[in-house]
């Protein structure tokens, strides 16, 4: 039976008693902090700013494509827009937001006072932040010849030999290379911290099979980061050697192979999307049980499925290369492995459904986003299976069907769960609840916009519309569908603005949140909102997977059943 320990009086109480601090003092505090909570918030804020910027880039793309033969932007600008949109969203929105939540939550959830290496944590954030600044500096600092101007324009995957010095003179490609290289160093540092914290700093009693599932998923994600980001780093070093030292890694004139870049990039690129999606699963694993008032169904299977997804994701990369001519053997192998990865993913979906089944469901805003996530992720997975069949991919590869598929995952699954995580953990981070009414407006507008855009985007893909074209002829029949797709973007933009407004206004005027507004069960809800800088006055001990349930229900603790 767990006993309660009251921390010394005066800890974690209202901030009204703090003395007024000057602006520069606050700035210095945040810039020099090694506190995982502050670093997490900086990561998240930084990512939100880039979300708005990359969102504007998307809007510009959609305006250009809304009608045939449009001249809203030139082809050169269009190339930069989709390159920057993709690069920003993956590396400077997706990764920072997910590492931000991980940084904030993992130490709290394992009962630790900070990450294993706080200074490395700060270093990782600042070097990633610098990477993002460097990428956008390219808009101002461009140099190079006609047509090779400012921001990178080679696609977010920067295929060779387009990136060779002769085809991309100037420095735009180098901004792509170096900014991502720096952000990769930051990602490896944060992943190292998460693994070390998880393995070495769990509070007493928290055996590995008693950790919250979020911590498990971040552990697997971090392991993936080590073997995923490094291939990209290696490939980028090779690209720089080619561009500046006269190397021939990807130089076909000297016997090199441009396809080798594709292999190296996608050996990074595919597991990268699993790095992006596993934290979304982590949020679902925490949020869905709390609002179903049931423990997650099948905890061991969830762990095993996650580890399985991690391993299999390293074996599917060439499904991005079916049209390159690898031959029937490799094509068949990668079709098979891509289909196999659906099995552990399906296990997770079934377990979420089984958690909901028979539960007492509360349709709070985080739960609404989570339920949308469930069926949107399923559809995204199904279009992925369609694409995994290599002959079918020969028809649909490089078309808007692929764009629709991956945005269905990235936006429909990952971004929806990120929104859910915001509404769920904002009270903990700030001490205020986000406005429920604004949250519902955000949800429904975004939901309508998402489906208008990405459901109908599959149709031009099926009709043959290729990716990365800056305009198209009117007689293709694509114009009608593109107009609908673009109209959905407006709804999403409005919804995101409402969300941003909600974040800011609720900080000042939101309802005060106590330590545990959602009646949840993991250790972060045992601290005040926001937690004190040391997290726990007394390091907790746990006896089950839901330590707060045990505290609140001493007559029927989980430790009796586990």
């Amino acid at each position, binding site marked *: 039976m*767990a*006993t*309660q*320990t*009251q*921390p010394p009086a005066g800890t*974690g*109480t*209202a901030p009204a008693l703090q003395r007024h601090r000057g602006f520069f003092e606050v700035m210095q505090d945040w810039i020099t902090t090694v506190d995982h909570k502050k670093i997490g918030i900086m990561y998240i804020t930084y990512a939100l700013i880039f979300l708005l910027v990359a969102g504007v880039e998307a809007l510009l793309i959609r305006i250009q494509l809304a009608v045939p033969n449009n001249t809203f932007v030139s082809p050169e600008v269009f190339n930069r827009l989709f390159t920057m949109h993709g690069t920003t969203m993956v590396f400077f929105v997706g990764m920072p937001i997910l590492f931000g939540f991980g940084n904030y939550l993992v130490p709290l959830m394992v009962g630790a006072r900070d990450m*294993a*290496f706080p200074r490395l944590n700060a270093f990782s954030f600042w070097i990633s932040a610098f990477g993002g600044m460097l990428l956008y500096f390219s808009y101002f600092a461009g140099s190079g010849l006609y047509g090779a101007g400012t921001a990178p324009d080679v696609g977010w995957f920067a295929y060779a030999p387009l990136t060779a010095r002769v085809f991309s003179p100037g420095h735009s490609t180098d901004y792509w290379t170096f900014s991502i290289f720096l952000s990769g160093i930051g990602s*490896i540092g944060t992943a*190292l*911290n998460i*693994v*070390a914290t998880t*393995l*070495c*700093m769990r509070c*007493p*009693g928290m055996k590995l099979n008693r950790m919250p599932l979020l911590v498990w998923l971040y552990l697997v994600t*971090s*392991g993936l*980061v*080590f*073997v*995923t980001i*490094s*291939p990209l*780093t*290696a490939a980028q*070093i*090779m690209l720089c*050697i*080619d561009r500046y*030292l*006269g*190397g*021939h*890694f990807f130089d076909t004139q*000297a*016997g*090199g192979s441009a396809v080798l870049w594709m292999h*190296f990039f996608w*050996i990074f690129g595919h597991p990268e999307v699993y790095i992006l999606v596993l934290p979304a699963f982590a949020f679902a694993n925490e949020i869905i049980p709390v609002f179903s008032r049931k423990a997650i169904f099948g905890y061991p299977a969830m762990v095993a499925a996650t580890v399985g997804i991690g391993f299999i994701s390293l074996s599917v990369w060439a499904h991005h290369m079916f049209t390159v001519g690898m031959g029937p053997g490799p094509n068949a192998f990668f079709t098979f492995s891509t289909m196999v990865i659906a099995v552990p993913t399906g296990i997770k979906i079934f377990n979420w459904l089984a958690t909901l089944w028979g539960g007492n469901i509360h349709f709070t805003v985080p739960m609404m986003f989570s339920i949308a996530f469930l069926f949107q992720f399923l559809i995204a997975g199904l279009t992925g299976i369609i694409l995994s069949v290599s002959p079918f991919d020969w028809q649909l590869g490089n078309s808007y069907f692929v764009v629709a598929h991956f945005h269905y995952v990235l936006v429909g699954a990952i971004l929806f769960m990120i929104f859910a995580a915001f509404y769920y953990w904002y009270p903990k981070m700030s001490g205020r609840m986000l406005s429920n009414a604004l949250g519902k407006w955000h949800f429904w507008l975004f939901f309508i916009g998402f489906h208008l855009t990405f459901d109908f985007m599959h149709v031009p893909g099926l009709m043959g519309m290729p990716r990365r074209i800056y305009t198209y002829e009117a007689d293709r029949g694509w114009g009608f569908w593109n107009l609908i797709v673009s109209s959905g973007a407006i709804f999403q933009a409005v919804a995101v603005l409402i969300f941003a407004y909600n974040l800011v206004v609720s900080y000042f005027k939101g309802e*005060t*949140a*106590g*330590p545990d507004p959602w009646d949840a069960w993991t250790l972060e809800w*045992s601290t005040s909102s926001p937690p004190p800088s040391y997290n726990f*006055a*007394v390091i*907790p*001990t*746990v*006896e089950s997977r839901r*330590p*707060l349930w*045990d*505290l609140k229900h001493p007559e029927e603790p989980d430790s009796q059943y586990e």
Partner: protein
Amino acid sequence: MSTAVAVPHQPVEGWHEPSRGVVGMVCLIIAESAIFVIFVVAYLYYIGKSLTGPYPHDVLELPIFATVCLLSSSVTVHFAVHELRAARVARSAWWLAATVLLGSIFIGFTAMEWYQLIYHDGLTIRTNLFGTTFYSLVGLHASHVIVGLIMLGLTLIFAIAGKVTQQHAERLEVLSLYWHFVDAVWVVVFTVVYIVGR
């Protein structure tokens, strides 16, 4: 709403967790290994594909002595850790010095080999695929050796200055893990470049 918080707390017997430094270094080693794997794959893929010479069998000689030096330095650093754990700081410093010396000999041999290749055999990073992949892979390894030598050298300086004590043994062990990794990578690079690729 009450702001008092309740934290579950019961005493727990026998709670052991691994060392943070060791786990952190293992993670770094995994990540660095993945980088090396990609360069090794590129090297293997491009064996025999250079359009022009010089070719590996023309210009490469087995660096036996340098390899023996580097691998021995793993043994010496192991003893350095062992002596520091036993609080014999002076002996540990001698073993560290031996490690730094052996590692420096390895780098010296690499430098002499590269001088020969560049100025007498005409092989540079831009000459052909062999040149590109050779200098990248061996150079990446050499840069990791240099970083390791800097760290070991700093430790040696601190030891000579009397700042290193038995309490630092675990940190030296973490550094020695990095050094063992560098040696293991050399075994792979040596096999791929000087045996398989020739």
